[in-house]
């Protein structure tokens, strides 16, 4: 992640709370500052409050408490049409009774722009998403991917400085989704716009974002760059939600010199990096990424901790091998290894010694 200058506070959520029924809070005390030109993703399971935050920013929901500021200006009482925020909706929301050109012309027309200027802008926006030839089509005559591009062009055609995207790729197939991820990313880079992107797809979030805010239960669980989020999750939820994760339950035996000794359920001791555990006797979940686990002795990193494991299942996945093991009483411990020439394939029933570097084992709060 590159450091940005002057990135503080293009969009600011200041102690924002939201409740629909006056009994439960959907968004609990949200504080978030999004820099100008940043690509920020709100990631979380459904019901985590991320879409509510986006809707409050767009002006379709009002914050129950707290301030939302756009470019230093409080916008709580500004109606949506005066916020000048571009938005791409989950189902694209292309107006079915208008052609592609009319759809793109709509935001320009309501701003009172003349026909000549409008046409130039529409053409430029369509060319930007390589859809220039489709100006006279109706949305129903376009494929999902094409509709997606038009929705993107429409959100950008009036040059907003902030664009919100609400799961825009959810309806596309995998290949097209991955392709569009890159295109959106490139548009963001070339236009210098600020993007707030909502998704529940962690792969999408990792690929595209400058920073990711992981939402759960109405709170931001962690706000960090993708690599930090993946490699150094701050709590069990984030470790679970981002990527695949092995967890070994246990209790803290000792914490010293930034190292924690954890006693596993089977009585074995392992060393881990303490993250949000602080005292002896505390229950913990040790989290280890599947691709950081090795079983060939010559590949074990120096000072690696090793433990016995029984192979339960071997799955050939093409570029990867995926092996399920029984480790310290847990039988869903998964390791992933690249399919290289020298990689040995484990056989079910085999007992191997597996190991990992101590910093890759992170002692987190129990869920």
């Amino acid at each position, binding site marked *: 992640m590159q450091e940005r200058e002057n990135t503080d506070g293009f969009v600011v959520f200041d102690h924002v709370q939201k409740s629909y029924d006056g009994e439960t809070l959907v968004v609990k005390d949200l504080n978030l500052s999004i820099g100008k030109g940043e690509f920020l993703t709100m990631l979380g399971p459904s019901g985590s409050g991320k879409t509510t935050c986006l809707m409050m920013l767009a002006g379709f929901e009002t914050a129950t408490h707290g301030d939302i500021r756009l470019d230093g200006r409080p916008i709580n009482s500004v109606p949506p*049409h005066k916020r000048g925020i571009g938005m791409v909706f989950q189902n694209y929301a292309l107006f079915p009774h208008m052609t592609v050109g009319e759809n793109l012309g709509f935001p320009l027309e*309501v701003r009172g722009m003349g026909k000549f200027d409008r046409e130039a802008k529409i053409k430029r926006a369509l060319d930007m998403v*390589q859809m220039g030839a489709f100006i006279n089509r109706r949305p129903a005559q376009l494929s999902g991917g094409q509709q997606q591009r038009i929705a993107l062009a429409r959100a950008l055609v009036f040059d907003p400085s902030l664009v919100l995207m609400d799961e825009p790729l959810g309806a596309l197939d995998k290949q097209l989704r991955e392709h569009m991820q890159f295109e959106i990313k490139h548009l963001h880079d070339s236009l210098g716009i600020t993007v707030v992107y909502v998704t529940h797809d962690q792969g999408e979030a990792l690929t595209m974002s400058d920073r990711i805010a992981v939402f759960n239960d109405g709170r931001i669980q962690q706000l960090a760059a993708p690599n930090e989020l993946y490699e150094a999750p701050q709590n069990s939820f984030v470790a679970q939600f981002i990527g695949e994760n092995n967890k070994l339950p246990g209790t803290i035996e000792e914490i010293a010199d930034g190292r924690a000794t954890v006693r596993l359920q089977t009585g074995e001791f392992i060393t881990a990096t303490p993250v949000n555990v602080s005292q002896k006797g505390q229950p913990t979940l040790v989290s280890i990424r599947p691709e950081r686990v090795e079983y060939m002795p010559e590949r074990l990193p120096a000072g690696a901790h090793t433990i016995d494991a029984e192979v339960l299942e071997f799955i050939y996945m093409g570029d990867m091998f995926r092996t399920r093991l029984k480790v310290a009483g847990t039988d869903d411990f998964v390791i992933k290894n690249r399919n290289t020439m020298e990689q040995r394939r484990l056989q079910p029933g085999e007992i191997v010694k597996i190991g990992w570097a101590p910093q890759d084992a992170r002692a987190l709060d129990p869920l």
Partner: protein
Amino acid sequence: MSDMTATTTSVSEALTTADGRPLKAALRRAQSLAKRRAFMLVLPLLAFIVVTFVMPIGELLHESIYNPDFHDNMPETVAWFAANPPSTVPDEAAFTALADDLKTSAAARTVAQVGTRVNYVMPGTRSLFTATGRKAKSLQPPYKDALIAADPKWGDPDLWATMRQVSSSYTADFYLAALDHTHGPKGNIVPVPADQAIYLMLFERTFLVAAAITFICFVIGFPVAHLLSVLPLRTSNLLMIFVLLPFWTSLLVRTTSWIALLQREGVVNDVLVYLGVIDAHGRLQMIYNQTGTIVAMTHILLPFMILPLYSVMRPIPPSYVRAARSLGATSWTAFRRIYFPQTLPGIGAGSLLVFILAVGYYITPALVGGASGQLISNQVAYFITGAGNNWSMGCAIAGLLLAAILILYWVYDRLVGIDNLKLG
């Protein structure tokens, strides 16, 4: 971009199956069984529609141009008309034929039918036929003198012109009459005297009242349908029961409750008097006139507007209006440019439904319409069941009504497109 390139394959020669037969023929054969089965499934309904819908309407249209009462009972007179051109002055042969026919039909007790048929065109002649029919046996030649002696009207050239006119079984007279026109003395088509012309006025009134009802239903129904479509399903289902409640109440009960509300001593007038809006002597006449017809029929037809509107509005996702708002449109612009156009199929369907039902509505205008609230359907009922006793006339009016509806349908198709119609 793989998703953007449309691949088109042009087939230059006819495709064949693996064993060399034309593909199209093979496809037809493969589908014919399924098609036959599908046809058998709809056959009962098709038969039902033919028996209960197509045939009665055909019969109705036939009845409106067919009346054999004169033709069948007065064969000799009919033969004389056929043999002599229209302007011929009736001679002794004509009177002989007439007298013979009167004798036979008097014996067969059909002379009243004949008189009724002539009476449709020339009022006041029915008694002439029945009276002469009673004396028919005693008539002696020369018949011309005998008949004119029995009643001088028999010498009236207009009567003879009328008899010639009704002597054919097939006639467009009833349609002419339903359009307030008749045959003049020279056989030409002339409007009936102003004091007898009622049908065109009634048609016009019917269409105006139906248009007013449709418009009021739209104005009242649109917000209701919108509310139902945005509420959570549980709440909207509950409210929908209130919309449908009128369907579950007897038409008569609903109409009489409007009488209770709107009559001179009714609830509405009482409230207005109590509030001092109107004077006790100036109570409003809101029932037994056009107002009553419009109010009661709007109430009855409202669900027919709300239901198609609701079914169109429900699937419109709120994201369209949100998108429009985020693109810079005020809520009014978003409604006008984005939401409203998408409800047009429902508006079209609802309006067409309400209008067509209103045009043919009978019971409510009959009960609460008074004189000024009578519609054309009341005339149809009058002729078919009531004192009018003229099936052909009733059928002709109904036929015109049917034609008007079909024209309306055609106009709608030209303006909006019939495929742009969503009934639910």
